[in-house]
């Protein structure tokens, strides 16, 4: 894709690119080197600051923090998918009295910052007499926000299918539920998968918001260990460990998405000479993430 913008360079082009490459490397290495030097100069690489990693109790705490992050993610993901499915169905419904409330709910929860939503549950509801644990508040917030975004993804996925699909199904005498579950959903799910998984990555990242309502997860753990004088306040080493855990988890999810995508593409290839291929659209239209949601 990048080769679109420039030709295979000639001798002068090569020289120019090489010069740019040298300058670019100098800048990149310079910045990296300076940061590493600051790390070194302030003693972040000293063994003392990394000694906390050897203690069994602290390792166990790390596992505990990781598992509570994953627990919030799992609960939030399952609930958000369910919420999304219900409200997508509501928005696609033929009945106005179902459609209107669904639209309002989805638009409302998408426009409010997730953190405010979580604060509402954790700090706001007690004054109305409802007490919540940090876990519940976090998961509820994740469910409502990401569920609303997923509802839009589902809806866009269903709407992206050619109309002939549902028309043909109705012509065969199927009921609305049958059309949806037997014809539309199986096809739409394939097209939606990348969008769904990237929303799940967002959900995973958003579990870090639990830090702000005292939920004991990875970031809270980083703050606790990072501030302990016993190990010389190893905030930066702990930060490095925790952020690499997050990055690894997110990359694993993204990798899963790519894997599933490639598998889907393989399974749709129709062997030559097996019926007219134009009945099955080769490439399902990409799901465009609907208005108002950047996946960040």
């Amino acid at each position: 894709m990048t080769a679109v913008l420039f030709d295979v360079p000639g001798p002068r082009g090569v020289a120019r690119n090489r010069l740019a490459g040298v300058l670019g490397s100098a800048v990149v290495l310079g910045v990296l080197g300076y940061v590493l030097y600051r790390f070194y100069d302030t003693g972040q690489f000293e063994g003392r600051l990394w000694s906390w990693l050897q203690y069994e109790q602290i390792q166990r705490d790390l596992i505990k923090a990781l598992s509570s992050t994953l627990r919030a993610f799992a609960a939030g993901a399952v609930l958000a998918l369910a919420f999304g499915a219900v409200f997508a169905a509501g928005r696609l419904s033929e009945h106005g009295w179902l459609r209107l409330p669904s639209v309002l709910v989805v638009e409302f929860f998408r426009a409010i910052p997730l953190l405010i939503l979580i604060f509402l549950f954790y700090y706001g509801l007690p004054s109305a007499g409802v007490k919540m644990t940090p876990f519940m508040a976090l998961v509820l917030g994740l469910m409502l926000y990401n569920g609303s975004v997923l509802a839009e993804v589902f809806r866009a996925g269903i709407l992206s299918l050619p109309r002939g699909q549902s028309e043909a199904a109705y012509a065969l005498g199927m009921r609305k539920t049958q059309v949806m579950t037997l014809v539309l959903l199986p096809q739409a799910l394939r097209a939606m998968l990348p969008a769904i998984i990237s929303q799940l990555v967002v959900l995973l990242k958003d579990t870090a918001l639990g830090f702000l309502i005292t939920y004991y997860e990875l970031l809270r753990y980083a703050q606790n260990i990072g501030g302990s004088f016993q190990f010389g306040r190893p905030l930066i080493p702990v930060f490095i460990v925790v952020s690499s855990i997050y990055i690894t988890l997110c990359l694993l999810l993204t990798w899963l998405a790519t894997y599933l995508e490639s598998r889907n593409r393989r399974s749709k290839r129709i062997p030559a000479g097996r019926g007219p291929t134009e009945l099955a659209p080769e490439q399902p239209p990409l799901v465009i993430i609907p208005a108002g949601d950047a996946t960040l």
Partner: protein
Amino acid sequence: MGDVWGVLAHNTDLFVTGFANTIKLFLIASIGSLVLGTVLAMMRVSPVPILRVAGTAYVTVVRNTPLTLVLFFFAFAYPLLQIVQISFFAAACIGLTVYTTAFVCEVVRSGINTVNVGQAEASRALGMTFAQTLGSVVLPQAIRSVVPPLTSVQIALLKNTTIAAGFSVFEAGAIRDNLSERGEDVLVGLLWVAAGFLILVFPLTMLQRSLEWRWRVAR
């Protein structure tokens, strides 16, 4: 559920300063991320491998890190490196910019990819350089398909500014803190904050939808 309007009327100062700071954070990070994101996107499509690698590495790392973690770094870990001491507000601006830049970059890059290959080829055939091709032919066309998703990124940025409240910045997300100190009804206060965001986000969403509809490119 006490006095709904009273919470707003008695604490107008909090709400006004809070939302003013939110908007300030948003504008600074918005401009910063748009400029840096475009530069980063150009690096990622440039003919120089090292720039491409650096751009890709940046985007991969930042996109997969929670924003809370980025802000945490600039608020608590960065001062330990003893480079230049910065205020919490500046730290939040930098954190939000660093984070949003990666997303802006991806949007701009995918916009560049939507421009027809023939366009770039034709301009190369006319003898244009890489910078000319990108600047006078590809980017002007890419902007049409880029602006609607860029608006989404900016809307998300606006909502994300609330996270700075957890790192000693007084903005809309921190109104709750001060309300509970004053003994006001936090639930009502938070609902007002939510309403404030609805008012801020709604015009942007409308703008984005109309742009999406009007600038739909027929290709």
